[in-house]
């Protein structure tokens, strides 16, 4: 049933219907509403049996999940930003041990300077952990992806991270059709662990593996992710037939069939971009969009196919590898390396800066005039940058840049969005 609810609530209720047996979390904005809601359901007994554990850190949150999963329980947790980094050692470990934990990542920037607002730096930091990473475009998809995530994780014995934009989705109230319990039960069988801690059949999990076998272990993990490239679309179509809506899959294309310019992006910004694209198509521009849902494993073939026929690719991404460039752009470039398709990176929305249609239009106008740089920072205030550069040049003790920039800007609280 469609209801007007907050994204976090939609995700929490969906996760609850996936019947997780152990849920533990440590609060961090903007993930809090999700775990608060699940905690309430456990307390109320509407989610049972389930152990809800308030841990002392994200490191413990993932560690508890590891223990629970290894002992055969369906484990779920959620985090964001600094929290993901704090648990990172355990995040790698969960993947290394092949434990099908599902975690929601409410995407948020990473400090310093500390910043609670949305971008994709955290997800990108976990890019190489061995987790499957799915990005939600809407709150409906965010909810639906969790149902598929548990099924995917448990079939492959690989942990899955469902990424949804912090605040933009987690705190947005909109119409969400939370998957019904019966449908979820039909779609998601009970967890049959590939290996489990059982006194009746003792095994040792987590051996030390040396050079003689480490490469093979890693390669096997890689193969399992490649298997996911087959399984994810299959699950998406099963989901579509079971729930009557399109969610998940490897990627979504929009108006790409005749497009000469294609914009590639992850997550909720795709909606804004689509509005822009619609307007510009009305104005006669042949423009399309590719929204990547499965970021890890990266669907090279599908991306290549989706971009065939385009003359220009513009990757709009909410992350940035300092001293290098766009992370997603690099993957897209890998996918299209044999065609010498011009590729532009547009770094946007860092630390929660709003990505407005107006700014996107300006950027696309530049592109149309072939003035778009290979790497562009949307709405970058060069004036501020120059001031600080000058300050630093002038004196050794120029003070902390972040604070300087804030004072140059004046009252930030007055900024809208």
């Amino acid at each position, binding site marked *: 049933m469609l209801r007007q609810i907050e994204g976090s609530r939609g995700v929490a209720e969906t996760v609850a219907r996936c019947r997780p*047996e*152990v849920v*533990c979390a440590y609060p961090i904005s903007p993930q809090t509403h999700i775990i608060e809601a699940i905690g309430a359901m456990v307390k109320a007994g509407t989610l049972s*049996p*389930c*152990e809800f*554990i*308030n*841990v*002392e*850190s994200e*490191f*413990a949150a993932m*560690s*508890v*999940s*590891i*223990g*629970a*999963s*290894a*002992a*055969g*329980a369906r*484990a779920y947790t959620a985090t964001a930003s600094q929290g993901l980094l704090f648990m990172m*050692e*355990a995040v790698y*470990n969960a993947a290394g*041990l092949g434990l099908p934990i599902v975690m929601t990542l409410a995407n948020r920037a990473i400090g310093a300077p500390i910043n609670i607002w949305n971008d994709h730096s955290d997800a990108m930091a976990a890019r190489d952990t061995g987790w499957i990473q799915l990005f939600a475009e809407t709150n409906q998809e965010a909810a639906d992806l969790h149902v598929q995530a548990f099924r995917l994780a448990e079939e492959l014995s690989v942990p899955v991270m469902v990424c949804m934009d912090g605040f933009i989705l987690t705190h947005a109230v909109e119409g969400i059709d939370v998957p019904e319990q019966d449908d979820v039960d039909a779609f998601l069988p009970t967890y049959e662990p590939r290996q489990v*801690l*059982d*006194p009746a*059949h*003792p*095994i*040792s*999990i*987590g*051996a*030390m*593996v*040396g050079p*003689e*076998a480490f490469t093979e272990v890693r390669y096997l993990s890689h193969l399992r992710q490649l298997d996911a490239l087959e399984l994810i679309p299959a699950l998406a179509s099963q989901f579509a037939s079971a729930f009557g809506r399109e969610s998940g899959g490897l990627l979504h294309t929009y108006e790409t069939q005749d497009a000469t310019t294609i914009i590639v992006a992850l997550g909720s910004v795709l909606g804004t971009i689509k509005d822009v694209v619609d307007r510009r198509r009305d104005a006669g521009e042949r423009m399309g969009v590719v929204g990547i849902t499965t970021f890890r494993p990266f669907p090279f073939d599908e991306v290549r196919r989706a971009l065939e026929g385009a003359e220009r690719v513009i990757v709009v991404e909410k992350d940035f590898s300092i001293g290098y460039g766009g992370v997603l752009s690099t993957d897209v470039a890998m996918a299209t390396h044999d065609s010498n398709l011009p590729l532009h990176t547009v770094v946007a929305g860092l630390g929660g800066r709003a990505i407005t249609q107006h700014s996107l239009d300006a950027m696309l106008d530049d592109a149309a005039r072939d003035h778009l740089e290979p790497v562009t920072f949307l709405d970058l205030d060069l004036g501020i940058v120059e001031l600080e550069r000058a300050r630093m040049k002038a004196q050794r003790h120029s003070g902390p840049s972040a604070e300087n920039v804030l004072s140059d800007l004046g009252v930030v609280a007055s900024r809208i969005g």
Partner: protein
Amino acid sequence: MTQRPVHFYQVGSFVVGNRLLDVADRTVQSDPQRSDSLDSGHRACQGCGEALGARYALDAAMRVTNGRLIAVNATGCLEVFSTPYPETSWRIAWLHSLFGNAPAVATGVAAAMKVKGKSDVRVVAQAGDGGTVDIGFGCLSGMFERNDDVLFICYDNEAYMNTGVQRSGATPPAARTATTEALGSEPGNVFGQGKDMPRLAMAHGISYVATATVADLHDLENKVQRAMQVRGARYLHILVPCPLGWGSESCDTIKVARLAKETGLFPVFEAEHGIVTGVSAIRHRTPVESYLSIQRRFGHLFGEHGRPDIVAHIQAMADANIERYGLMGDVEQFAATSGATS
């Protein structure tokens, strides 16, 4: 002639399996059917106290739980020497995740058992002193505070042995390690405030906290048994000498542990809900020299350029322990607490 009951046995009750005791009253280790939780073929050094302590503790736990046991292991010597691919020495359900998260992983296992209605399966988490008092302390404290149903066992060999004997929060004052060399005016480790993990555990008010050494098997097994008889968070701190890191003879591992107790440097006691309820009395009070001088890590305190002042300082610490815990009880009581009655 005073008629006294025959309550001593030929060899007291300090041996592993006194033939004059009922089989049931002998230690688990005397049992030919003991589980050998940690089995032959492991790669621990000769005379490894940790290998010994781990088998002692887990075999005892296996007996109490009738084999319904799952062990979680932190990274460290124990983990590395027991499970190098392709061989494991564990005969029990065992999981290794990370260095600092054993308590949390164990919490997860226990939660899984509870949610699956298998609460008869008990969970033990084990780590060295580094994984307990240093990198694992956050998770351990959280596990204690939530009173999760886990017995956490610290095998304390007083330094980071796995990485080559570097100083840990449990390294004693004046001890030489790779990162506290025996140089300068204050050779070896600092005389800090120390990190008294058992008392930190007691401060959480958990149901059971105890210390033990590999030198008194009866005491150790009794404590494991008592720990397994209660639910919630429990803590057992076992002193396990490391011949390599301590510079003691491999054949002296148990002797060194015994001296640690007999000198008062390592108080052996148990506590319930934060209150000390029993101590293992010192049987033959011994000056700390006899403990220190057989370990090369303290070698710089003796000989020509010895440091009697530092030895005196350490003796004072031992005396303070003896005072604090009342370790000078009479031997009868000691024998009794060691299960010496027939």
